[in-house]
Each structure stands twice: as structure tokens, then as C-alpha cells.
């Protein structure tokens, strides 16, 4: 049988998700200590663990001999609790949700306000968090993760678009990361040992497009290294102190055959 009950205690001494309940009207007068503990009833396929609030009302399934008491842990059976209009107001504000017209969508509202929806007609599905962040999946597989005030990412076939970002970081480890500070116009590579422009035609630096891999300046440098066999002086450090000149050891001639074409294009 199904009976209405009020939750009077949720701290289950056995920590098995049981709740102590007052069944109406039969147990209206019983002392709290004498009231039964109801077990949650859940399927292995919908493993939702949820403990109702104290003083909330729910429906219990009770055996004919009043020995077993169970509650459906993910559902409060409350009359007139169908909240379509309330959810529609929220979803109408989301551009990516193309339709949420009664009776197409199924939806679920978790106790913390988290919304899950599924439109049976156009197959759109998604989630809305109470912070305003939402995820919308389109039938073709496109999906959006968006918070209108914070970020917007759109995944589609072979493409990821990110908008409204102030920064973007790929944090590989403590020593290696790529950080793009869009707001301050700064790209920072930390611990990146190789930067490879492969099969590139042009690389734009300082607003101008230069020949690939700045071929001419690089060739000059390499030629110098090939021919320079004498010691030369340099100033140690970014701001050398006056009079401190050190002599470097002689350079070993560079063997051009060790420069692989995959690394530097010389022709």
C-alpha cells in the first residue's frame, strides 16, 4: 500500500539512507522513538542517492503487515508538483534551446535546482545549473557549454569555438603550461622545449607577414656559426657590469649535415 508520511529524522544510525517517518493518519500520535525507519528503494540502473529533507512529505510503500517501509529515494510524490512553466521560463532564456513546448520535453529538477531536460521531438537534451551555466546537446552531436556572463564553448564537427574568454590555460604539469591571457594580450609558454611550425608558409610577427621561418636572417646566423672559429667576447648577463668582459672558448665548427630538414628549412 502507498501511504503519505512526514520525514521526522534523516540521521540514520546505520547510515543506510533510511529516514524515520510519521505515517498519516495511523502514526499521528506515536512517540518519535517508536516511529518506523523507511529504507530507500532504488534500482541499480538509476543509482540516485538522495535523502529527503526533515519535515518534507513523501509517499511510502508499506507492506500489508506494516513491517517493511520503503521510500523511492529520487522522487517525492507531491500533487500539483509539475513545474513545466517554471522550467520553461528558464529555458526560454537559452538561445541554444530551440524549443521547449508542452508536452514535448521531459525534465527533472534536482533538490539543488539542477535541471535535466530532454525534448522528445527534436532530441535536444541538456542541463542547467543554478549558477546559470548550461550544457545543450543538439541532435547532430553539436553541444554548447555556456555561461552568458563567463564563457562560451561550442563543440561541433572538427571545430571548437571559444568566445567571451578572458584567459585560456592548458596546464600540463607544474613545470609545463600554455597560458593565453587574452585580456592583457599575453601568450606564455612555460617548459615548452620545442615549438615547431611544420609545413608553414607564413608566420606573422609584429603585425607583418614574413617569409617562412624568417629564412634570410636565420641563414645568416647559421652561416656565421659555420665559419666562426675564433674566440669572441660577449657581455655576461642582460646588464653587464662595466669592465667585466669574459672570453668564450672557441666554437666547434658546425657540421651542416647535423641540421635536419625537419627542424630548419634552409632552401
Amino acid at each position, binding site marked *: 500500500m502507498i501511504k503519505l508520511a512526514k520525514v521526522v529524522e534523516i540521521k540514520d544510525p546505520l547510515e543506510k539512507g533510511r529516514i524515520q517517518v510519521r505515517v498519516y493518519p495511523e502514526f499521528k500520535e*506515536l512517540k518519535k522513538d517508536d516511529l518506523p525507519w523507511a529504507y530507500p528503494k532504488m534500482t541499480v540502473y538509476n543509482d540516485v542517492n538522495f535523502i529527503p529533507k526533515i519535515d518534507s512529505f513523501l509517499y511510502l510503500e508499506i507492506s500489508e*503487515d506494516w*513491517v*517493511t517501509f520503503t521510500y523511492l529515494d529520487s522522487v517525492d510524490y507531491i500533487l500539483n508538483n509539475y513545474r513545466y512553466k517554471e522550467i520553461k521560463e528558464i529555458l526560454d532564456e537559452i538561445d541554444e534551446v530551440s524549443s521547449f513546448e508542452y508536452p514535448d520535453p521531459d525534465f527533472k529538477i534536482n533538490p539543488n535546482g539542477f535541471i535535466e531536460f530532454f525534448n522528445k521531438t527534436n532530441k535536444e537534451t541538456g542541463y542547467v545549473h543554478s549558477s546559470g551555466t548550461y550544457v545543450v546537446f543538439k541532435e547532430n552531436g553539436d553541444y554548447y557549454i555556456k555561461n552568458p556572463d563567463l564563457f562560451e564553448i561550442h563543440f561541433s564537427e572538427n571545430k571548437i569555438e571559444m568566445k567571451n574568454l578572458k584567459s585560456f590555460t592548458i596546464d600540463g604539469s607544474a613545470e609545463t603550461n600554455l597560458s593565453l591571457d587574452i585580456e592583457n594580450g599575453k601568450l606564455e609558454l612555460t617548459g615548452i622545449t620545442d615549438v615547431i611550425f611544420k609545413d608553414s608558409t607564413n608566420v606573422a610577427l609584429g603585425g607583418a607577414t614574413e617569409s617562412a621561418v624568417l629564412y634570410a636572417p636565420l641563414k645568416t646566423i647559421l652561416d656565421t656559426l659555420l665559419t666562426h672559429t675564433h674566440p669572441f667576447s660577449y657581455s655576461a648577463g642582460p646588464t653587464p657590469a662595466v669592465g667585466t668582459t669574459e672570453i668564450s672558448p672557441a666554437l666547434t665548427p658546425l657540421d651542416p649535415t647535423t641540421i635536419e630538414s625537419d627542424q630548419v628549412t634552409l632552401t
Partner: protein
Amino acid sequence: MGKIGKYSVDIEINGAAVEVIPSNISFVLGDSINSFYSKATLTINDLEGYGLESRIFTSGSKITFVFGYEENIIKTSFIVDFTETLDPIKSGQLSGKLVIYLIHESFALSERKSESLSNKPSGDIEALFNYSFEDTDIEETKELTFDRLYRPFMNEKETIEKILLPNSISSNSSPSAYFCFIDIKGKLTYKSFSGMVALEPSYSLIQNLTDDLENYYLKIYSILPFTEKLESVKDHIVYDLSYFDNKSLELISEEVEIANVALGGYPIFKTEISSNPYFMNIENFDYLDRDKAHIYNLQKDSLLPDKLIVSTPLFLNYTSGKTVTIKTKYGKNDVSYSYSKKYLIEKASHLWNGKNNQGSTQLILSKPFPEFPANSTIEKGVY
């Protein structure tokens, strides 16, 4: 009325003695292991319609019978449940045979209420009532594996039948259904089938050979070797009990002992079609014992298929739940080994027939464990 020969027959209505013509009344006082309250029927030839006009037999009126033979007299009270009038004698006038159906007086004291009980039905049984009994016979039950039972706004009878009986397993006898009833002497019995049939016979009955009231019967009215319909038995008797252990995920099967003991001898059970394994959907193994008790309780109607209906002189000590032995014969005065056995009194009815000013007792005797073929052992006490 008072004395009629060696019989005592007196009736009080709402505490006041009533003068009625003995030949105009008949009544039956009865108890049964299958009925919680003992019941009675009073039939009055209301020739002039005074019984109807006075409305003294309205529902709720208390009727007390003082009834017996020689020194064996009881005083027992009932409440009018309902009445009906049959065979009007005078057209257009109140008259006819007034039949008054009565239920034991404790019914009037019953109350609906909610309370929590312990986890031991035999400990709860007496505490349910706000009145006491002349006598009690309560067989101890096991403590259940959960904290408590509940009485959810139920009266005593409902609580016993819906809450306590289905959760009772004897702590002494082999597992079997429990029965609870109040006999016409006001004794409350709460006992398992195994506990009742294990009782030593109270009386040994032979046919018409002695003036000793306790030890003879007048007639066997009916012999019912198998009162159950085969179809019903085939569909309802549980032989094996299976359930999934949701921890080991193994199927566990147990034999339901009482079914095999009580009914296993019948030829129908030798056939494969009679097999009726029962599968329990166990949700919580804390309740396994209770679930087994339910199975035993469900089968209680089929436990006593062999019945005799026997008439004896009026003897009010025959009450339901006692055992007796019967000696009967067949052929050329040969002792019947099939039917000269120990029987349980399933129902006892004590009759006053005003037409011939005579009392009698009619018993439904049920044989717990028939054998096929009958063995040649004469039950202890049968001579």
C-alpha cells in the same frame, strides 16, 4: 426456563432474565480455530411479533446464555451482530422465525488504535486487549529480526490476523501457521498448527458404548477424506521455497517442511503436476524469517484436509484446538486403521433444539497427517 430435565437453559438479554417458551427457541454456540471470535445463532419462533416490536434484538444488544447438562454448565455472553426474519406466519403482521446472529462479547470491547508493538508476537498478544480472558494458551514465538511491529489504527482482530499471525514462527514447534481464537468459555488461544496437533488427546471417543459423556459419540455424519479441491491444492500448496540471495546472487531452495509432512502422503502429491515451488522476491534479508512465516500462514486453510463431522451428547468441554481420538469400525466389526486416529477439534458447536428439548454437540474433527496406505498403528489412547 431454568431446568429442562438434566439440561440448564437460561437466557438473559441486556442483563435481564427473559422468559421464553423452550420449544420456541433453538440456539447454537460455537467456536472454531478458523474464527477469532466464537459465534452463536439464536432462533426464536416469534409467533406474535413481540421480539421484533420490542427491538430487544437490535445490533449491539447483549445476550447471555446459561447452558449445560448436569454439572457441565457454562455462562457465556454474545453481542447481537444482525438479525433476520424468515417465514412470516401471519400475513401483514410482525411474526415469523427470528434468527439472531451473535458474536462473542469481547467484540463489543474491541477498539481501533495505533501503537508500536515489540518484535515478539506472542509477547504482544495479550497486551493488545484492554480486557482480560478467563484463560489463555499462548505458544511462544521467535523474536523477529527487526525492531518492532505496528498496530496501525486497527482493532484487536485485525491486528492479530494482519500483523501478528503472518509474523509468527514458533520457537518450540516445527515451523507452521499460527491460529488465534476465543472459545465459548472465553479462553484465548494463540498456537501454531504443530503445537496444537502435538497436544495429547483430551478425550477418546467410541461409538455409543458408554454413558460417559466424555467418551462416546452418537454418529459420524460425514467423512470427508479430502476436502480440498485438487485444483486449489495444486495451485496453492507450497512445497519448495526459493529465493535469490542478493549478496551471493545464488538461488537458494528450501523445503517447506509442513507442506510435506501434512500433505505429502496424498496421491496427488506423488505426481509431478502437483509440484508448486514458490519463489520469494526477497528485498531485505532482515525479513527472511518473516517472509517464511507468511508462506506458512498462507497455507493454513489447506493443512487439515481430512475431516469427520461427529455428533455427541451435549458436552461443553469439547472446544476448538483440543485433540481427541476416535475409534471407528468398518466391515465385520473391524477397527478402521484409516480413521481410528487422533483428530484436532477444528470446530465445536453446542446446540439446543427447543423442538425436542434436547442438547447436543457437533464437532468437525480434522486429521492432521493422514497416511497412505493407513498404517496399522493404533494411536495412543484409541482402544
